[in-house]
């Protein structure tokens, strides 16, 4: 690239050139200043946004911790309730077992009683049949007047 050539070595011309170029440099520095101001403003904005995000995250963390505490408390309470229910259930289970056992016993007793009743009924039936037979017998019929006289004198 060809270097700019001064058409004149006159000190005044060189000074004029330097003055103009220094003015151009001021324009360039003003551009840089404007860019820096814009950059600073943009970064300040980002910083503010970051802080807002951080504060929001802190609030969410605090809220999450509170929620965790509440949840832990609720969990503890629920566990206690569950323990109580478990104990109650265990007790009821034991009672149920006892009742079941008692029921089985009663059922056994009932069965035995039923068997006895059945046996007794059978015996009654037998006796009844014998009685009917006896009452149907001629000797019973013939002795009826004597039983009447006996009842009369009793």
């Amino acid at each position, binding site marked *: 690239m060809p270097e700019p050539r001064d058409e004149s070595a006159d000190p005044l011309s060189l000074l004029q050139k330097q003055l103009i170029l220094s003015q151009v440099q001021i324009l360039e520095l003003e551009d840089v200043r404007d860019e820096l101001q814009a950059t600073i403003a943009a970064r300040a904005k980002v910083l*503010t946004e970051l802080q807002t995000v951080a*504060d929001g995250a802190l609030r969410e963390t605090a809220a999450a911790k509170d929620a965790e505490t509440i949840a832990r408390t609720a969990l503890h309470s629920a566990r206690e309730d569950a323990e109580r229910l478990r104990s109650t259930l265990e007790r009821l289970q034991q009672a149920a077992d006892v009742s079941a056992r008692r029921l089985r016993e009663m059922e056994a007793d009932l069965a035995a009683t039923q068997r006895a009743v059945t046996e007794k009924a059978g015996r009654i039936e037998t006796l009844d049949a014998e009685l009917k037979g006896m009452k149907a017998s001629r000797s019973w019929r013939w002795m009826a007047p004597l039983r009447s006289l006996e009842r009369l004198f009793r």
Partner: protein
Amino acid sequence: MTPRFQHRIETALPLQSNDGVLEIKGWASQEGANLPPEIKIVSDRGEISAIHRCARPDVDAAFGIADAGKLWGFTLRGKLPAGAHLLRLVAAEGGTDRWQTLQRFTAVVFSRGLQASIEFPVDLTLRESVRIQGWAAHPDASIRAVELHYGTRRVPCEFGLSRLDVPQFLPEAPDAGKSGFVSVKNAPAGRSVVRVIAIDAHGGRHVARTNRYAEINRDEENPAGLNLPAQPARLPPARRTSPADPFSPPHSPAKPLRVLFVLYGDFTSNSAIHVAALANAMIALGHACIVAVPEHAETLSYHRGARFRAVVFDAVPSDGRIFPDGNPPDVIHAWTTRENVRRFCEPLRQVTGAKLVVHLEDHELRILELNLNRSRHELLELEAAALEQLVPPTLSHPQRSREFLASADGVTVITEKLRDLVPAGPPIHLFWPAADPGAFFPRPVPRDLRAALGFGDDHTVLFYHGNVHAANRAEIHELYQAVDELNARGAKTTLIRTGRDFCPISNDTAKTDGRQVLFLGQIEQHAHLGALLALADFFVQPGEADAFNDYRFPSKLPEFFAIGRPVILPRTNLGNSLRHGEDAYVLERADATAIAAAIRTLRADPLLRERLGTGAAAFAAKRFSWQRSAEGLLSFYGQMTSLPISPRLTHA
């Protein structure tokens, strides 16, 4: 039982402090308690517990507190070191030490920076050349050295003098106790606000502006006194502030286009100014634009605020998918038929199927003749291989350029005459270049700077910003000779030039003594030229109607007109569209003699000068607009892209 607190911080968050002091206001109460809780702010780098309390009847009402008047409100105020902090607002029941965290939040504390004061002389305006005394301390840094700056003056100071008072109000500053300074010599003549510059132990520089203004006209070296101006002479601002983007799009385009501009040189060329302006305008209108250059994409910095992306040829992949949406261009706009442009565009067009538009802005063959110093007949008689060797990539090949034009889907031209060079076939669209309205607009002459440069009212200043190359060196030489002639006849005239010289303007190196030409070289930012152009009284475009000028549109002309000064130019290209004596001063032939005569005429006729200045600005406002040129070009693209792809092309 754990106490339960209610609170609210009422200071707006996020919290930032520019001076190290944090203040937080709010209120806090405790359930079932009649007394406000203890409150403080805690961080890992300190506590803020200094508190001011106040009644909050609104809190009383909100919580139905019967015993009103309790001091629920608080203001906590204190200092924290510079940096980012994680703070906790904590509360404790009165009389206990069981602190609970109420809220966590961040705070950013910016350093106050250098603190300094000048104490002697006591007057706010320093008029005497005396020793200047004061103090300087930085809250976060240890200072090694101090200087005073005003105007161009740099005055070193002796630093480290004892100061018992500064630690009282700047206890955090490492050097507070030894922060005194005194200048090593009497303040020299100068004029400006006085600033204290401190260099810290790590070489960092810190600046503090003082309330002192130096207006010292006399010192030991200038006992007679200097006449220092109240305000330094300045160029006007480079750009004007405009409330609205000049390219505000009215709406999103129905069919956004992807346009790839292809330049033959880097972004410092005049062609790049046109392409940059068009690309910016098209992007503002909702289209996508990329500009490809052979090399030096970093020269895009010449166009500060460019909205488009720059790529070098080698960085474009063979499938042309360089747009953000992953697609290739819809339109390839080849800027001239130069060989490097043609070789890049043709294969890309084949692969992508994009519409090819070729732009003509010069008589390329004439430029080839001038650069190779051979006539077109001589060139066309050469063997193909020899011609191939002779034509550099940055010029147009006489035959291939014509084939390239003929194969295009469209051609754009910058002057009517260029239509003659387009083979039959492709449609042609004419658009004129324009000037950046933010930098080139009617500007008054900066008289104070002109005076500082020694250019009195009887001194004519011309300005020409343009490169010199083989095609225009003769014309520029005419301009130089016009300047010589005017000065020789006692009409003080200076030509200020910028740009690059690709060849010597004249071989007559002897005639440079006394020549009133200030050559500033290339100005890094094109937008700064507007402020420089304001220095001129007139603008001159030398030349005449010929095979070179008839086919071009000098890119500086819209900028000349936009500044609102009389423009002297020949009756060719734009000159054919101007009214002499109204829009411009049009010469049949703008050679040295005619230019000098025109300048003498204008110097003698202030009414003509005013009319031509006004006429130039009006013509620019009416006829030069990058937005209109871009809209016209987009419409031209639109006509092409709505047509089916040329059957000559095959897709990849």
